[in-house]
């Protein structure tokens, strides 16, 4: 028996060791290989060809390309990249293979259209993509929403945005906010209020975690902007009354202008600077803010909250 036992023992040890080794090497390979994968991925640049070569297994391939698109974006975003060149081709192929993959269009609207480093900076391509989606899914209200979103946020074309939202209200089961947004375009385009409505609508209309994280981040930024605008008004009023800027919040609270120490969405107090400016304690946690940044502050690539 000893001969056979020895073989079994040796084989077991060898098996476990090589298993561990192959897992380890696999992780190493991932590091060396990733960009190479994507070069291959895009080897077939033409969606038409991909569709032909898929031999009918469009759905599965669409899922694979969608996974790659998300990984591509996620990986680049985490690494703090500033361009997303391959995002459009990936999404184009995905939707060519499966025109009914709504989330792909939403992803494009959210991350193709905005300028770098937030997105790929291709609003026109984004529009093309979403229009293709509408063509193939004329009853999907979410796509009209995305179209309007792009026109509003990235192209500042409020009339086209309104038009898109309006068309969306005609889709079956359209979310009520489409009607509100259409109306909002007319009177309050360009206001923080409208932006907030849009980001909230985005959050509601998609389950994708990247899109939602993006929306949350924007909403936080809007909150900060609003807060700081308010605080600036209070500081100005105090200065007018006393002739000099407040040196601390206690003074402001004493005069009844403030009820408590104001905090940002993270719960950290806003910093009251010597010259009366308001600053964020951790500006790197709030991409997309327009106010509260220290002078000369250069924001890095955006990170989702």
């Amino acid at each position: 028996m000893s001969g056979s036992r020895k073989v079994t023992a040796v084989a077991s040890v060898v098996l476990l060791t090589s298993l561990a080794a192959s897992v380890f090497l696999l992780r190493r390979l991932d590091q060396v290989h990733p960009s190479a994968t994507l070069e291959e991925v895009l080897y077939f640049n033409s969606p038409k060809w991909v569709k032909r070569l898929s031999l009918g297994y469009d759905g599965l391939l669409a899922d694979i390309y969608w996974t790659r698109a998300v990984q591509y974006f996620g990986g680049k975003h985490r690494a703090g990249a500033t361009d997303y060149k391959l995002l459009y081709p990936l999404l184009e192929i995905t939707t060519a293979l499966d025109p009914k993959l709504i989330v792909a269009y939403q992803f494009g609207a959210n991350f193709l259209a905005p300028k770098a480093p937030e997105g790929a900076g291709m609003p026109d391509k984004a529009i093309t993509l979403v229009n293709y989606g509408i063509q193939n899914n004329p009853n999907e209200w979410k796509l009209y929403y995305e179209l309007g979103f792009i026109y509003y946020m990235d192209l500042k074309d409020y009339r086209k945005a309104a038009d898109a939202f309006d068309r969306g209200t005609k889709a079956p089961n359209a979310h009520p906010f489409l009607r509100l947004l259409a109306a909002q375009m007319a009177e309050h385009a360009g206001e923080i209020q409208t932006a907030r409505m849009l980001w909230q609508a985005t959050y509601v209309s998609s389950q994708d975690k990247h899109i939602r994280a993006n929306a949350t981040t924007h909403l936080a930024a809007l909150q900060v902007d609003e807060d700081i605008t308010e605080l600036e008004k209070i500081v100005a009023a105090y200065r007018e009354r006393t002739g000099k800027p407040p040196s601390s919040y206690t003074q402001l609270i004493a005069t009844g202008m403030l009820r408590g120490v104001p905090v940002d969405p993270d719960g950290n107090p806003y910093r009251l600077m010597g010259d009366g400016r308001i600053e964020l304690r951790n500006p790197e946690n709030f991409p997309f803010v327009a106010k509260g940044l220290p002078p000369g502050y250069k924001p890095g690539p955006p990170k989702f909250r």
Partner: protein
Amino acid sequence: MSRVVHIATNTFREAVRDRVLYNLIAYAVLLSGAAILVGQISIEIERLIVVNLGLTAVSLFGVVIAIFIGIGLVSKEIEKRTLYTVLSRPVRRWEFLVGKFLGLTGTLVVNTFFMAIGVFLALLYVSHGFQSSDGWILVALYFIVLQFLILCSLALLFSSFSSPLLSAVFTFALFVIGSFAEDLRGFAGMSRGLSRWLATAAAYLVPNFSALNVIGQVAHGQPIAGQLIAYNTAYALAYSVMVIAGAVLIFERRNLK
């Protein structure tokens, strides 16, 4: 040790006498036909097509051979009872397995060698000369051989306990899944809970063929990183060893009816 070599040599001899190498004829016809057709089209992409088609065919032909012969490596010997007289000699069961594996792998290496000559000849025909970047084609071929190493070990594993039909199905399935191994890890990363664990485990156990496929790159004349070559070699060896160890464990205590 020499017993392993003898068994390997005999396995190679069996493959040759079973006329496996005739597939080279089909390959030659395919490649020559393509080269001639392609020679009529514009200059830029003919080299591209020859390399892509040639290397993909090397890979696919080899996969088919690996599966067809591999699935019978052990099961055929049990069914035909040729194994009995081998094991009644001082041959250890693991020596038998390793010998069979090396014989099959050797067959594929020889096959690939001839096909490689074919690719370079076709390339010479359409480009009327070699470029320095053509050297990377050898790396792509080397990776294809590594791919065969893994596939042969898998076919051996299944052959040691399963019927030929099931072995073929499993091995082919692993080949397909392995070609999308990196996507599988992407799926795993995007899912949650129990399915995330299962998908991740599967993603690490499945052979990673996508890293071994550099045909596209090489067709464009792009170089391959030395690190990639090193890691791929180590990975293919580690994975094959793991699978063969598994086969040894299964076969060691198997009752041969």
